[in-house]
């Protein structure tokens, strides 16, 4: 009992000091930032994107006179992730970035016990006290990717290969399918889930299965497994659209475009605000194209194959999503987009 009270007291004090620091963060002293991704910081995808963001924040803050040091731990199970988070917190890290959906509990639990550290957790349900969640609303840019695919498809069928049927990944897959229908109401859209982030072999066969039933553009909603999707597209002379980071260099002849999550930007903003103490209490940072998250990186090699009018249409679509004229719903059930009435998109 007494111990509990003591802890509360400490907590109060600490929170106080944090806020003080926060307000005076303009000339803030140096801080340490820890980065804990799902995979490895050089995976050329999700985990690397987040790491780039942290590094960008370092540079940005350096301009404002704050030097931060960055450390990271790779390839952890959720349980190990919490160990790492707590360890960093005890070592006085000011911000700990948990860049993996499965680390949500790690963030919340550690957050309770280490109130003087900011925990940033990607794709989690809520923000509480010193734990903030940031969510790249990937359905927006996926919708654009679907639209582009539909316009470019010669066969009248496109498909998406996704890793898991988890809500934020399903948003992407369904967003893509919806966008395709928006681009061409008569188009056929397929989706596959392979229950793995890195089983490239299975991803290849899934893509092949869609190609065999007519699809000629495949969108990747997977992590490293996307290599398999490119291989399949390459073998059939078809196209693929990557996600998260620009991957056109991984398969120049097949990756038409990459639907960037701008994870780097998102993470950069979160880290800078956290270090500068500018994060709004209890705010869920779910950022879509309206917030500058999500853009389309065309593969220079293939950009010329896109007819100018298509390019123009895509541009205007993106504009109207940014401006909020078109709101993209987030479907967490496979197949939901098929039933959705396209007229619902236009918000008035």
């Amino acid at each position: 009992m007494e111990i509990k009270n003591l802890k509360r007291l400490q907590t109060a004090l600490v929170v106080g000091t944090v806020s003080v620091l926060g307000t005076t963060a303009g000339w803030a002293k140096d801080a340490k930032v820890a980065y804990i991704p799902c995979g490895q910081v050089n995976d050329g995808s999700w985990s690397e994107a987040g790491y780039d963001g942290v590094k960008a924040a370092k540079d940005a803050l350096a301009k404002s006179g704050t030097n931060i040091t960055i450390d990271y731990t790779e390839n952890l199970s959720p349980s190990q992730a919490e160990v790492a988070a707590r360890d960093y917190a005890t070592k006085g890290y000011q911000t700990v970035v948990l860049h993996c959906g499965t680390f949500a509990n790690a963030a919340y639990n550690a957050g309770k016990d280490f109130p003087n550290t900011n925990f940033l957790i990607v794709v989690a349900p809520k923000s509480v006290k010193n734990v903030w969640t940031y969510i790249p609303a990937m359905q927006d840019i996926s919708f654009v990717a679907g639209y582009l695919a539909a316009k470019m498809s010669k066969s009248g069928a496109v498909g998406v290969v996704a890793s898991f049927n988890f809500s934020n990944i399903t948003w992407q897959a369904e967003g893509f399918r919806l966008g395709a229908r928006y681009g061409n109401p008569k188009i056929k859209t397929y989706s596959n889930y392979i229950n793995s982030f890195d089983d490239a072999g299975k991803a290849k066969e899934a893509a092949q299965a869609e190609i065999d039933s007519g699809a000629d553009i495949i969108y990747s909603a997977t992590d490293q497994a996307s290599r398999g999707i490119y291989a399949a597209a390459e073998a059939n002379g078809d196209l693929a659209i990557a996600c998260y980071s620009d991957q056109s260099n991984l398969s120049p002849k097949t990756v038409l475009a990459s639907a960037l999550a701008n994870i780097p930007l998102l993470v950069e903003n979160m880290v800078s605000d956290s270090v500068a103490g500018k994060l709004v209490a209890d705010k869920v940072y779910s950022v879509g194209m309206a917030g500058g998250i999500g853009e389309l990186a065309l593969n220079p090699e293939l950009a010329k194959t896109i007819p100018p009018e298509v390019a123009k249409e895509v541009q205007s679509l993106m504009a109207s999503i940014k401006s909020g004229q078109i709101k993209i719903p987030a479907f967490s059930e496979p197949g939901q987009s098929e039933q959705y009435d396209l007229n619902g998109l236009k918000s008035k």
Partner: protein
Amino acid sequence: MSMSVDTPDADRWRPYLLGAGLVLASMTLTGLVLLPIGINPISAYVQILKGAFGSLNAVTEDLVYATPIILTSLSVILAFRCGLWNLGSDGQLYLGAIATVGLGFNRFGLPAPALLPAMAIAAFAAGAVWAALPAVLRLRFGASEVIVTIMMNFLAVTIATYLVGGPWASGITPATAPIVPDGFLPVLIPGTRLNANFLVAIAAAAILSFVLRRTVFGYRLRTIGQNIGAARYAGMPVNRIRFLSFACAGGLAGLAGFGEVAGIYHNLPNGLSPGFGYTGIVVALLARLNPLWAVIVAFALAALNVGSGGMQRAMGIPVSLVSIMEAVLILLVLSTRLLERRA
């Protein structure tokens, strides 16, 4: 199978000295991997010690990580003592976790004090059922339990993934909805994650050890494992006992899942187990199928794991190196006849 049961040993110090030598040897070997990537092995090992025992938090984390491994290794031991391989404790762990969560957030109107026990029982039962299938296939149809249990692991993970993404999804995180607070296991030391399931694991080890040494059931079980012909000759109900112990083995693994959910996550996340089941097999062997030794070995491996996590954070060494280090150590142990049956 050349795995041997712990027997009283004449020169009892030899194994310990040898063991110490092996640890040194594996440290040198891993050092050879470390040097080329420009890392000073000595300071790496110092960091491991720091990470494993540097603070109260570190030590409790060792115990937290050891808890599920203790239970899975007991599961392997129990099955092996009656001559069956349980490579399925990973899957059984998942089933235990699923049962815990299912009961944990549906609650079914259970009063607070009854909820935790009910969850534990459900987890045990679920693990037991998952183990019962391969047991029946082996005892009835002679299907290799090695293969079937491995396949069952894949299935268990698939089911868990389905629940996480589908019916039990919690909105946006790749994890099921959380269980009710009444279903949280009490934390033993405030501010750490060390929870009551650690005591469950220790108790399980003690009970199993007693059952094997002192009870009729344990006697029969050991007889079957050592010489099934003799067991039949002595009129023991061989198949029933084998079935029972394999099911209970599954139950023990299920309890590991219970602890991870009710004690650590309070929900079922995607990728719950980093291969606790397989680690359990290794621990069981290193403990020479002795439940009490399994506790110590599990703690040692856990400390190595937690400690090397610290090393990685301190020096930016890739995690994969940790598993390499463990593997090298164990392979060295295997290459000495330390664990071989004595004729």
